[in-house]
């Protein structure tokens, strides 16, 4: 059983609200001269989407479970699934939309006559990510991924008269076009081998027919080009430093939190329900003959090592955070290779933690850039002693959390990842991960040292904090600290969300 197009709309109201707010932003943009208000419309839209998605998760969960009990978790003729996994990611994605829209309100780069387009396209990108998190068909997976990519290219090139922004957009476009082209070429081979685009049917066909292993392996590697490019995993990471460096800071933040989370959702949903089988005691077995966990193991190790080593000699903080986000894609992939519910749970939890600390770090970068016009490490010199004590303290919390020091949220996230890895007996992976965390301490601590221990030079002006950024920073830093001490509710939420709807 599956719901048709009309019946499905009843379960799609968060997306509907996003769609309406996109239209509202574009329409109001046409008839209002005061462009400052548009950001508020977008913020309300994103917040409503968040409220209704959380509502779907907490209040309608019985309704959804009832649907799934009747074998009706599919919407739109099996195009998307409504399960707790999708809802988890929708909550994360709407949180990142709210955070990024909120932070854009206080951004000097975004402010301008075109900001209506910016907010509309930002929400559209979020809408695409919602579909990425729930696609259960290769066609919809490709369409939603491309939707997110196309909107991201435009957002990256938003600063039309800025050379770096245009260059970043061009590089993103070229890498993205090649990666998604390679991905659909790989998908076409999967389609040829299994005769279907539907994840469940692909799974059944792979288990029954045992197709040619080499062809299947090549097809998977080609598909990984598209997925790996969205999460910025080696060897498809080359775009990340340039794009993060050139894009406006709120867009960089959105790419690093939203785009990456959506990419992981797509990756997990394809590799777990479609290419593996749920076995006993929360373990998964991959389809016989295709050793993708070995491949992903190497990808995870290389990704975190390369990201951390390249970050060591970066002096532009945005570029440094780009390499750090590549390294974090490697850490999250550690939970991916162990093929157990514990690994999945740890990944989901880490994605929440990563959202808090990375978004926070980018807000501090934006505060400094708003005041001094600088994004390099010199702009942070003595930040705590020239009026920026609160942003400096918050940045220290976020950076130590990114390193994984206790008692902050990053430590708990890494703890669960390493626990899953050790329990899966991937000891080498754990050793590489821990060594990498040690290396990363060097470049994170260097920023903290520059902010607190170095004397400010006389030429640098005062740093002031406007209420938008101040309140958001306070929320994120408090959440990072609290999640480091009391993480049970979020962890339970992640635990409940590892269940995929597989049909019946």
């Amino acid at each position, binding site marked *: 059983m599956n719901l048709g197009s009309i019946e499905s709309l009843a379960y799609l109201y968060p997306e509907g609200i996003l769609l309406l707010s996109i239209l509202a932003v574009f329409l109001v943009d046409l008839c209002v001269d005061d462009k400052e208000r548009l950001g508020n419309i977008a913020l309300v839209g994103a917040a409503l989407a968040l409220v209704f998605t959380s509502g779907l998760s907490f209040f309608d969960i019985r309704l959804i479970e009832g649907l799934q009990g009747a074998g009706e978790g599919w919407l739109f003729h099996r195009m998307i699934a409504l399960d707790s996994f999708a809802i988890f990611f929708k909550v994360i994605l709407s949180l990142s939309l709210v955070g990024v829209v909120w932070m854009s309100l206080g951004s000097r780069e975004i402010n301008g006559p075109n900001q209506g387009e910016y907010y509309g396209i930002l929400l559209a990108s979020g809408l695409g990510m919602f579909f990425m998190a729930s696609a259960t068909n290769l066609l919809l997976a490709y369409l939603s991924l491309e939707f997110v990519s*196309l909107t991201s*290219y435009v957002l990256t090139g938003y600063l039309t008269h800025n050379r770096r922004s245009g*260059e970043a*957009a*061009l590089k993103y476009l*070229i890498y993205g076009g*090649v990666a998604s082209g390679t991905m659909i070429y790989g998908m*076409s081979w999967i389609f040829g081998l299994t005769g279907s685009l539907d994840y469940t049917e692909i799974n059944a066909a792979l288990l029954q027919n045992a197709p040619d292993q080499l062809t299947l392996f090549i097809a998977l590697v080609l598909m990984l080009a598209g997925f790996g490019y969205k999460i910025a995993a080696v060897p498809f990471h080359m775009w990340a430093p340039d794009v993060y460096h050139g894009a406006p800071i709120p867009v960089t933040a959105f790419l690093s939190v939203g785009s990456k989370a959506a990419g992981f959702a797509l990756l997990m949903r394809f590799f777990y329900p479609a290419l593996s089988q749920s076995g006993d005691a929360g373990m998964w077995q991959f389809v016989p003959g295709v050793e993708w966990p070995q491949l992903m193991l190497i990808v995870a190790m290389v990704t975190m090592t390369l990201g951390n080593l390249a970050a060591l000699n970066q002096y532009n903080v945005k570029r440094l955070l780009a390499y750090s986000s590549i390294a974090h894609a490697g850490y999250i992939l550690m939970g991916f290779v162990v093929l157990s519910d514990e690994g999945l749970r740890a990944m989901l939890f880490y994605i929440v933690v990563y959202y808090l600390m990375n978004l926070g770090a980018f807000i501090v970068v934006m505060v400094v850039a708003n005041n001094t016009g600088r994004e390099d490490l010199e702009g942070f010199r003595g930040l705590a002693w020239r009026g920026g004590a609160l942003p400096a303290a918050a940045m220290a919390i976020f950076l130590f959390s990114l390193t994984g020091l206790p008692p902050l949220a990053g430590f708990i996230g890494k703890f669960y990842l390493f626990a899953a890895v050790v329990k899966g007996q991937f000891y080498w992976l754990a050793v590489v991960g821990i060594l990498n965390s040690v290396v990363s301490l060097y470049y994170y601590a260097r920023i903290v040292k520059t902010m607190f221990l170095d004397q400010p030079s006389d030429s640098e002006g005062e740093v002031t904090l406007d209420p938008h950024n101040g309140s958001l920073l306070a929320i994120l830093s408090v959440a990072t600290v609290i999640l480091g001490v009391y993480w049970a509710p979020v962890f339970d939420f992640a635990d409940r969300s590892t269940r995929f709807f597989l049909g019946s």
Partner: protein
Amino acid sequence: MDGLLLDIGLRHFLFVSLIVFVLGLYCVLTRKNAIGILLGVELILNSANINYIAFSHFSSGNYDGQVFAIFVIMLAAAEAVIGLAIVLGIYQNFSSIDIEAVDSLQG
């Protein structure tokens, strides 16, 4: 003559699409002109289209593959629009669309 045409099967289509795919990749890797690179991306997309239609016709027995190909064509058009807009912006800022001239981001 009839026999010659009837002999054309799935294998031949897959071979053509592989050639187109490799040519597309070669084009992307060697071209210096931004529009040339976008043309290479189009070749890659169309190689996938050939595969979808061939598989749909010869092996799957449904129209999923052909529908996929139509969506790919549509998205290729959307991507071309955005791509050309970005290239136009690059030309206004750098007075060139040679990707080797566009290198202000380094580190």
